């Protein structure tokens, strides 16, 4: 189990999205803004987000309960990173 700041989660997310984009033949999206919606921007699809949640859990080496985070926020970079960080800190 690790603790991670919101910034560290963002770094992981950034790396994940860049790899994903390149693997899918897309251009690298560059720096992810706080209000970037991964789903609505088309960077990632719904199954991809399920996979991302699994990847975050693996990275953090613990189960994260995404239940409390509203789906509207779950796909937005800033709220997602802060939520994961808070979840880790509260354990």
């Amino acid at each position, binding site marked *: 189990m690790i603790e991670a700041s919101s910034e560290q989660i963002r770094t992981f997310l950034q790396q*994940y999205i860049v*790899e*994903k984009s390149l*693997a*899918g*033949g897309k251009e690298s999206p560059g720096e992810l803004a706080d209000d970037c919606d991964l*789903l*609505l921007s*088309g960077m990632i*699809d*719904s*199954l*991809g*987000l*399920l*996979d991302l*949640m*699994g*990847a975050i*859990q*693996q990275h953090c080496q613990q*189960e994260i309960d*995404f*239940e409390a985070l509203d*789906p*509207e926020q*779950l*796909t937005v970079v800033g709220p997602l990173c802060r939520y994961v960080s808070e979840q880790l800190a509260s354990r």
Partner: protein
Amino acid sequence: MLPEAGGSWASELGRQLKNSAGSSSVAAMTSATRPLWAGFMRAARNFPQRPAVVAERETVSYADLRDSACSIAATIQRYSEFSSTQLTAVLAYRSRTAFAGVLGTLLAGNGYVPLNRTFPEGRTHAMFERSECRSLIVDAKSLPQLGCLLEHAQQRILVILPDVRDVAPLAAKWPMHRFVASEDLSPASHWQEPALETDGLAYLLFTSGSTGTPKGVAVAQRNVISFLDYMVERYDVSEQDRLSQMFDMTFDLSAFDMFVAWERGACVCCPTQKEIIKPDSYIRNNDLTVWFSVPSTAVFMKQLSLLKPGSYPGLRVSLFCGEPLPVSSVQAWSEAVPNSIVENLYGPTELTIACTLYRWDALHSEAESEMGIVPIGYPYPGMNYLVVDEELHEVSPGEQGELLMSGPQMSLGYWKDARKTADAFINVTDHTGVYYRTGDRVRRPQSGAPLIHLGRVDSQIKVLGHRVELGEIEAVVRKHCGSDAVVAVGWPRTSSGYGGVEAFVENQVENHHLRDAVRSELPEYMVPRKFHFSDRLPRNANGKLDRAAISKLLDGKHD
């Protein structure tokens, strides 16, 4: 009657079907004497205040949805000059207008062509152009894509906008086309019941073609009715049921959710684009009773620990279709749904949604499964199958070959493409009727046993002269790597086939012992020379592993 321009291919196929004297398909075909919208209208009469659909988090009653749909239908009927093709496109995504648009199209006597604003504009434009639709229904959030359809339109298009009050800016921008705003829709009471056509279209859906050009599969209302009649009886669907709609309308499995529900007055629960990513919450918050998704959703839910035993007691029917169903996923799912039957459905779009099924049974099914994949089971009533070799001769029981199917769910063929239709819908010596070549490789079952799906016909390759089934390699790798998502690819290409095989594994953690484990079960020429670990493999728009895109990754890796 089919559209004039498409008449040649369809009438020929229809003639062959009708000449297949004695086949059960003919009896079933002629028994489908009601339009596809009839079930919805009956439910709307019987249960006007019950929920017909939940879309954009709003519940719409049968009475309200009927009014919206009839109003759209009456509008299409009012502008009869746009009816040269009996198809209407629906550019709408998980919205009330999407459902009203589908129903309104059918009520007008047309088939619907679903378009998806989350698809690339070029693909949407190609589908619209190939369909030759003259009418189009658009919801509010899809308006930004309207331009890509209208800019290059050669003919005048009727654009129905139930969510837009002021169409003047659109009319000014595209004066050639006719726009109808919400307030200009015809009253629902003006709807007139259309004549019932034998081959009246239900929908035109586009599937990926091997050449890169989407193929339009023309599915008749009688095809869907035949499917529906079996499904509603088998699952005893009632007005109390609440069905998931995980599939976009551009995926034909969405037709199950809508029409099975509406046939019996049940509710279609359509998650928003964002709600889809929390399937566990969606099942609970919406009191779902019937679940239908691609197996990949179950695979991810298992990875996220969302399939804990007893998690979803409200589900009574769980169905999976669209790609091979791993045994490990169905076992986890079954434990999470203690009150649900679990079935694996199989069927290409050309055979209307699904045409074989297999009920998972914790006691016996694992033994009936092969290579870690659940059988595809038994054909639907009236559907006949053959398992044939490359010369189209039936193979012996226990042997493998290509699956051909025939029966009342066999679609009309490819839209305005007589050559592709003739290639895929064929006559077989010594067998009456027309059969569809599925391109899927199966084992011809011994008496009473289920059909086993072994992969695609084209997934069998030659490696250094050996005939190799990529699915077999994938099954062994899957068993040892802890991931259900595995794709094996022939590489490098040689003049006679391939020099070897490489495997892609959806797993973040490299498994250095994998090669040894696989080597203990496969001959050397089948052991992947290289394993590529990726935390997510490319999938297509329907969530299936995208074999072509994965193969392309190799081109890059070996440059």
